């Protein structure tokens, strides 16, 4: 495939607002996970909550989109001058030539959950303030971001659970290559809600303590929230050394089970092979892997088998979900931005919370930060329904 430049990018998660705070947390090996105090949730678990989301106010003309998910999006768009960078490109290319591809799994469902507590006791109707289109609908975050940035091209949400915001990079890349648009805002936004906290709990996939990916005693995931964005464009003549490029994408389906991965990691391996092929790289060319690494026993085992088969046992990798929690529909974009920081700063972040690596997994899992120049990195994102996506990012020579 034809590489694209990430000409601007940003991330906001429990590690902090924007790239500097995110990098500082990674360098300090500081986790954003804390005991769950969210809303009225009474579960013994840790979450990666973004501070100050509820204090965020949307401007009057965007009030119809008000919900926790879009407040988080608004807060994140402002960081690192991302919104201004998009507006500058929109002036150059025209707003019609810039598309929006965003991932989310639960959109503004929290508003619906709260509205269901306030149904009319007689009729059962939702409160009059409830907004289906602006808050509840899965598309609302893309409609909001498109409007907030003044863009007029195609806009769509990809919602394939935890692969959502990795797959947006693949769809947007194709759309640019096909000439549908000239640039794309891609990213993912997912925010804490009761559906995912109680839902993962019902599947017995939630850890009581901060999640410990690849640990021999790993016992589940920790849920987080995040918003991460990138502006994808064809590399310009001026794309200098150190610029971050999207080099390859791979997508596959497990065709196996709704909520469990294929035990041999069949779909995961296919996605990684495709991404390597698209990037015209060999396994030995990859310097660091950001594992999907949720911390559930079966996910990590399946991914490790696939990684060992495709990339070998010696490739250094880690999951950053011990730091951020599993941010679900935002995980793909958040971890792509972490990979971009890794390339830019020569940092392979060590996996947090993990004490003793599961020897059965047979992969090289970093427990400490390692500083080294990186040329090519890979990020995995796998979701319910057997949806797999792998991205390869690299530094411009």
């Amino acid at each position, binding site marked *: 495939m034809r590489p694209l430049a990430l000409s601007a990018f940003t991330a906001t998660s429990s590690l902090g607002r924007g790239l500097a705070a995110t990098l500082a947390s990674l360098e300090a090996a500081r986790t954003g996970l804390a005991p769950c105090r969210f809303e009225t949730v009474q579960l013994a678990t840790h979450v990666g909550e973004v501070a100050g989301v509820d204090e965020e106010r949307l401007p009057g003309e965007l009030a119809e989109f008000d919900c926790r998910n879009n407040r988080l999006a608004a807060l994140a768009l402002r960081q690192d001058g991302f919104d201004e960078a998009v507006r500058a490109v929109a002036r150059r290319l025209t707003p019609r030539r810039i598309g929006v591809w965003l991932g989310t799994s639960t959109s503004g469902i929290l508003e619906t959950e709260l509205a269901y507590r306030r149904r009319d006791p007689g009729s059962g109707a939702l409160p009059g303030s409830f907004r289906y289109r602006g808050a509840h609908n*899965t598309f609302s975050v893309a409609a909001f971001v498109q409007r907030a940035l003044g863009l007029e091209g*195609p806009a769509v949400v*990809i919602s394939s659970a935890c692969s959502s915001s990795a797959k947006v990079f693949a769809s947007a890349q194709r759309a640019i290559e096909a000439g549908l648009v000239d640039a794309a805002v891609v990213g993912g936004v997912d925010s804490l809600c009761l559906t995912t906290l109680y839902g993962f709990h019902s599947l017995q996939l939630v850890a009581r303590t901060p999640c410990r990916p690849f640990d021999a005693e790993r016992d589940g995931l920790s849920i987080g929230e995040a918003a991460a964005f990138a502006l994808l464009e064809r590399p310009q003549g001026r794309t200098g050394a150190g610029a971050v490029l999207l080099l390859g994408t791979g997508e596959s389906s497990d065709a196996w089970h709704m909520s469990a991965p294929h035990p041999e990691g069949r779909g995961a391996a296919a996605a990684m092979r495709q991404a390597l092929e698209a990037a015209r790289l060999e396994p030995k060319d990859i310097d660091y892997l950001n594992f999907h690494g949720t911390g559930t026993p079966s996910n990590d085992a399946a991914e490790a088998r696939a990684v060992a088969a495709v990339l070998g046992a010696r490739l250094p990798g880690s999951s950053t979900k011990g730091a951020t929690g599993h941010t679900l529909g935002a995980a793909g974009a958040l971890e792509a931005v972490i990979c971009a920081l890794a390339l830019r700063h020569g940092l392979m972040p060590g996996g947090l919370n993990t004490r003793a690596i599961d020897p059965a997994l047979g992969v090289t899992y970093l427990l400490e930060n390692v500083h080294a120049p990186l040329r090519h990195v890979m990020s995995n994102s796998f979701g319910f329904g057997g949806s797999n996506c792998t991205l390869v990012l690299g530094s411009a020579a």
Partner: protein
Amino acid sequence: MSGALTAWVEGVGLVGPGLADWPAAAQVLAGTAPYEPQRTVLPPLECLPAAERRRTGRIVRLALAAGLEATARAGADAARLPAVFSSSGGDGENCHEICQVLAGADRQISPTRFHNSVHNAASGYWGIATGATAASNALCAYDASFGAGLLEALVQIRIEETPALLIAYDADYPEPMRSVRPIPDAFAVALLLTPSARPGSLAQLTVDASEESAERLADPQLEALRTQVPAARSLPLLRRMARGERGVVVLDYMENQRLALEVSPCH
């Protein structure tokens, strides 16, 4: 949109209110049979193991029925096809049940309800049912979901040079969500699209952006279906195909943009 996107339709699947399958719908759209709306009836789903079948919601059975019909009519192997699923709201019934439980004192939602709550549930069950391991996408663009799915499929076909199966589907919410999102009934359309003409091709579609208004349907009940169900925004295109008419048909897409489809029948 620069460089128009194009593909050939090799198979169509359709399920909707009073529209049992594509041949029945084609007769209605061609004007050779009257439109008699009645609650959408879904065909039995035999391709899933019984245990999985029991877990599926109505919207999953709806999407799979349309997809299976389109692939069967084209004689295609579903297991080898990349797929694009596009829905404006996903499983509203399941969402309602979860929100109801979460609003109560005991918040223990069922694991099946939770894994069915993902927007890509139909895509996941499609893989289990057909063994398809290729890329599968799950899109939402509110009322523009059919157009968004069509663009995604056409872009994939252009870049990957493989066929792709587009399935656009929507079903009605129960109350109280129904009052705030009044989709009247379940409707799905599936198009098996190929990058080049084949012996069984029905029509070539070429898409471009348009500033014109979307084409309407003369029958008031079909027009109501078109405007009330996002996946049914496809009906003017299907009408053109059912009549074997050549020409440009404009479909609703986003608020500020329509899609113009040039339809060239192959027979």
